[in-house]
């Protein structure tokens, strides 16, 4: 039976050949929860009678969503996580180490061929390393911590073939924004997405993570990126689809003519080419999130802002994806460049992405952000407007004070 990547990975974990539509109980290779989901997961785990996770070395807790703690309630939830980690021996990433998905990939906790459960909707990001990453809620995660297993329906797969090469200044973010528009907010609900094609083969690990990350904005269960061209520190066994595997649909996009894309308020699928919103005044620029604050993202922003100053009345807030990214950006001089241009750095983590702290926009303010969601109220204020774009577009807009195509300020 010819299989998709999703069917292959799930067959291995189910211990039998499975195909799309089957409901299976599968063993998991790792689980992760954050300060937004772990406290509830720990509570459910204890209510289930759990004492120690099935495998503490494969159980990861990350304090990233509201870190450092903005108030005593959150501080106590962080405490609960630390105590649980100490008691059970599972691995904890504390305040300032970075965003959960970045840490799982950067530290090799999720590997090609793995089935990895994250109590966070952007877990499909792990498809960048050829793993089946799936987002679940706290109770599902607790159940996996207890049993080392979960149940799921084997998803049908939509194949997306990206032909051609990206023009300079156009990035994986622009590709995925364009695709989210094409498929819509529920266009991939319950589906796996497989990405392939020469534009994918040419992508860096960071670009692949951006691509896989925003499949969450089409409702995808998981995303699997063709491992051709993938470079990791450790040798690995790639998982390819079989020739003749069955796809629900195949979508082809030639990216050679693609221009930078922007999602308008208040939906990530409300996407237009940058020209259509060019000139919209912005007050607040944010470079951050698990979508776009890796080293190449900071390099792109630094390239736009080198030797220049932010427009008057615009603030630029940057939350690096991880402490390691921050250190590398320091070593490369990007941090100095961005600081000199007027940017403000906040600790590695989710920062203002989810509206919990550190940079809530004011009423009527317009935000241009490199994150993945612009739902009303997402950044903590329902009266703010959020536009989503690549780090280069965010930096160019911070420079001019209006939404700007980076090619214009080259």
């Amino acid at each position: 039976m010819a299989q998709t990547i999703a069917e292959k990975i799930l067959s291995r974990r189910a211990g039998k050949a499975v195909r799309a539509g089957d409901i299976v109980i599968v063993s998991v290779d790792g689980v992760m929860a954050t300060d937004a989901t772990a406290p509830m997961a720990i509570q459910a785990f204890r209510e289930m009678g759990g004492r120690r996770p099935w495998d503490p070395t494969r159980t990861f807790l990350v304090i990233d969503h509201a870190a450092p703690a903005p108030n005593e309630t959150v501080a106590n939830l962080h405490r609960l996580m630390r105590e649980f980690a100490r008691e059970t021996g599972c691995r904890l990433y504390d305040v300032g180490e970075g965003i959960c998905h970045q840490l799982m990939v950067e530290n090799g906790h999720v590997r090609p061929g793995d089935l990895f459960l994250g109590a966070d909707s952007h877990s499909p990001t792990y498809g960048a390393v050829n793993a089946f990453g799936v987002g679940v809620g706290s109770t599902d995660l607790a159940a996996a911590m207890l049993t080392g297993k979960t149940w799921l329906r084997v998803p049908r797969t939509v194949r997306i073939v990206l032909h051609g090469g990206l023009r300079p200044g156009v990035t994986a973010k622009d590709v995925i924004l364009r695709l989210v528009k094409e498929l819509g907010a529920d266009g991939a609900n319950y589906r796996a997405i497989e990405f392939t094609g020469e534009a994918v083969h040419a992508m860096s690990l960071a670009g692949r993570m951006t691509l896989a990350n925003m499949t969450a904005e089409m409702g995808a269960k998981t995303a699997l990126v063709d491992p051709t061209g993938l470079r990791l520190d450790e040798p690995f066994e790639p998982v390819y689809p079989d020739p003749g595997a069955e796809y629900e649909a195949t979508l082809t996009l030639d990216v050679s003519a693609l221009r930078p894309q922007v999602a308008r308020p208040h939906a990530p699928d409300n996407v237009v080419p940058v020209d259509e919103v060019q000139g919209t005044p912005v007050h607040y620029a944010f470079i951050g999130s698990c979508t776009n604050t890796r080293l190449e993202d900071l390099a792109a922003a630094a390239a736009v802002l080198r030797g220049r100053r932010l427009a008057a009345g615009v603030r630029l807030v940057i939350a690096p994806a991880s402490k390691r990214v921050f250190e590398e950006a320091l070593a490369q001089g990007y941090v100095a460049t961005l600081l000199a241009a007027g940017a403000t750095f906040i600790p590695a983590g989710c920062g203002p992405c989810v509206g919990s702290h550190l940079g809530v926009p004011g009423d009527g303010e317009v935000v241009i952000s490199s994150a993945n969601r612009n739902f009303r109220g997402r950044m903590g204020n329902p009266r703010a407007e959020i536009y989503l774009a690549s780090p280069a577009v965010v930096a160019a807009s911070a420079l001019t004070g209006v939404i700007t195509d980076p090619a214009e300020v080259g």
Partner: protein
Amino acid sequence: MTHQPIHGPAHVYGDNIDTDRIIPGKYTKTLDTAALAAHVLEDLDPEFSRRVRPGHILVAGRNFGCGSSREQAPVALKAAGVAAVIARSFARIFYRNAINIGLPVVEVEDHRIQPGDEVSIDLAAGLVINHTRGETYRAAAMPRQMMDILAAGGLVNYLSRHGDYV
């Protein structure tokens, strides 16, 4: 455990209601379910948390609960008294989370439920009855695994009883 009969008036909303509108991220960092209920649907309908009573039914359009994996979304609805959610379709994680915490969710592609209609749900038969309009709608089938979890009152009860998936 057998299901309680579900019967109540409907609150009706539209398509693509994301988890940030069900419960904004800024309120989710708590284990206090009453605090969640106080802000449920706040950015969509500031009146909702005052109007909802135990047993009321929430009705929505397509892709209800899209966005974040926060389980606080179904928990907030349940804590506010919502007895069940009917939608034309659900986002995957929300649907699962709702079942896991014992909040019945029913997918009905085609219906004419209006605000205030008296609605009852027969989970076992997979039927939704609109008493106000004298109509019956068929719900999409739920996987057996989910039926079992819902019948147990949620995944915590299911696993404390069985110790593992069965």
